[in-house]
Structures are given as C-alpha cells and as structure tokens.
C-alpha cells in the first residue's frame, strides 16, 4: 500500500474544542460539526501544512506519545483516510 500524504486544512478553517472524552470540530467551510475521539485530535495537531505521510506522522507522534511496539503506520494511514473523508485533512 502506498503511503499517501496529507496536509492540514487551511489555517482558520477548523475550530477545535476539546469536550472531555470527545472533541468537537466545527468546519467553517462546510458549517458541519464533527465529533471525534483520540487519536484524531492528536493527528490533527501533529499534521502540518506540508505534505505528511503516515510514516512521517508516526515519527512525529512518537516524539510526544508512547506508541508501543506495534506497527502504527497502517493504523495511522487508515485514520488519515477517515479524516480526509470528513474533509478535515486534504490529500497533498
């Protein structure tokens, strides 16, 4: 599987509000509210405006979180594609 690259939504388009166990995200473009749980907020926080693959994301997240011994890259690739489907990240 190719490791697709994504980038964050343009600055100012998302309003992200942590609400305890959930995080509410308002997308100013679509006017939609998204409710997500971990690790989505952490991914959105780590992804930047430059192209970022699941491998790059894994290394960024590993700097802050204990990702364990398993291979997190396929999991992150899946989460990234879900975020892209919601319109919260873009294909780079």
């Amino acid at each position, binding site marked *: 599987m190719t490791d697709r690259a994504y980038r964050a939504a343009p600055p100012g388009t998302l*309003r992200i*509000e942590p*609400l*305890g*166990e*959930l*995080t*509410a995200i*308002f997308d*100013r473009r679509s*006017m939609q*509210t998204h*409710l997500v749980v971990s690790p989505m907020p952490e991914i959105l926080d780590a992804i930047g405006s430059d192209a970022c693959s699941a491998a790059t994301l894994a290394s960024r997240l590993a700097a802050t979180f204990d990702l364990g011994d398993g291979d997190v890259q396929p999991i992150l690739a899946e989460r990234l594609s879900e975020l892209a489907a919601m319109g919260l990240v873009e294909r780079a």
Partner: protein
Amino acid sequence: MRHSIRIAVGPVQFRIGSDWAEPIAALGRLYAGYPQDDARPAEATVRLFAARPWRRWLRASVHIGGDFVVPDALPLPLSMGLLAAEMGMNLQVALGWRRHMLLHASAVAKDGRAVVLSGESGSGKSTLAALLGEGDWRLMGDEFTLIDPEGGDAFAFPRAVSLKNEAIAEVVARVDPARLGPLLAGTPKGDIRHLIPRPGAIAAMHEPARPALLLFPRFGGETAIEPMGEGEAFVRLTEASTNYVALGEAGFAALTRLVRETPAFGISYPDSATGIALVEQLWAGTAP
C-alpha cells in the same frame, strides 16, 4: 383570516389567525394575562385554515399553516384547534427562530440561575418543570429554552404548559381551576390540558437566567443520578436543539460554552416527588 389574536411569549410575538372563532377565543383565555403590545410586529405567524372553503361547513378540520409548513401535519378536528395552534406556534419557533439557540428543554429558575431539563417527549421534563413552577421556582418554559449565543444566558419561553395524560391529574389537584384550559381528550398526543403559568412567571418572562444545572430526566425505573461528561451533554443538546445547524458557528460556540460551564447529570426517577427531590438535591450542589 376571519379571526386573529396576537400573543407575546418571551421574545417571540405571534400572530395567530383562524377561520374559526373557537380556537382564537380559547387562546384569548389562556393568554389573557400575557403582556399585550399590538404595535409590535409579529415575528411568527400561524394560520389555522380550512382545507377547502366548503369544509368549514361540512366537516370542519384545521390545517396548520404559517411561515413554515410541515407537510405531514395531519388535519385535526375543529375541537383540536387549540392543539393545532399550539403545534403551529411550536413549529414557527422551532424552525424559524434565529436570535437564540433553541433547546427542546424545559427550564425553571431561582435567584437568576436556571435548571435546564432536556429530554424526549415522555421524559417528564414538562411535568417536573410545571410542578417546580408551582413551588418556589420561576417556570421559564415547559417546551423550549432559548440560549443567547453571545452571552450564554437562558431566556424564557413560558407558553401555556401543555400537560399530557397522567400529568394532568397530578397538576390539576394542586392549582386553581381558573388557570386550566379545557380538557382536549384523545388528541394524536393523548389527552392534553393547558396550564396558565403563575403571574410571576409571566411578569418575569423577559428576565434572563444563567444556566447553572443541565439535567437529562428519564421518567420510570430506579432512582439514579449519573454525572454526564461535556462530550455527551454536547451531543445530546445538538439533538435537542431545533436550530443548531442553522446557527452555524454561533451555535457551536454557544453549545460548547454551555456544556463546559454547566454541570450535567442524567436522572432517573419513578415518580414526580422523587424527580423533584433529585432536582433540589443537585441544585443544592451548585451553590455559586
């Protein structure tokens, strides 16, 4: 429209027109104690009209019309004109109001602070609010609570309380019969009887109250109190709001603030007395 009436409930000025005198006269009695300002433009219009002119004479039925129309609203018998007017008023507010975030919730207030009770039909939110309103609480509304998106305050919508089924007997036993409307038996929503709020609740209907407690009541079952996280309260209130989507980011901001600043609980109770006791108990824990 041959007959009409203007009614102010909280911030909303209604104009209700009807082909028949009966529902308008009944509304006139229920809302006689509400402030009258005929110069104020109506923000919501409700029309109760005959489907065909001749039906007025042959087989009277009331259709609900207005600025917004629900296509599947059933024609109701003329005797249900009052219920049709109530449903029309709800519809106008639920679909058309933009100045506040609208929550499908009852509310009571004390000392400028409010308890907001959100739940489905049958959760007991209306009955609890009506009974609390007969005690030392100000009834803010049995159906809708309005939240100011700017400041976060709750505003009242104290329409005539719509008592349903078992709640009728419970409340009728405690109030002056002059404050009750006619019994509407066998409506699509069951038996309904309206209760005019106490004069103090009507006089104070423009006074905001700060939300201090968010409750999600569930009538029936064992007595229980379950603290609710901000996320779950947020999800439930988006479902309880009729205009959350229409308000866009203002609604998002208002709701995130509301759930962050206001403690929330789910409560289950087997009877009204227990429900009231739970509200009082949780209220005591929110002292400012």
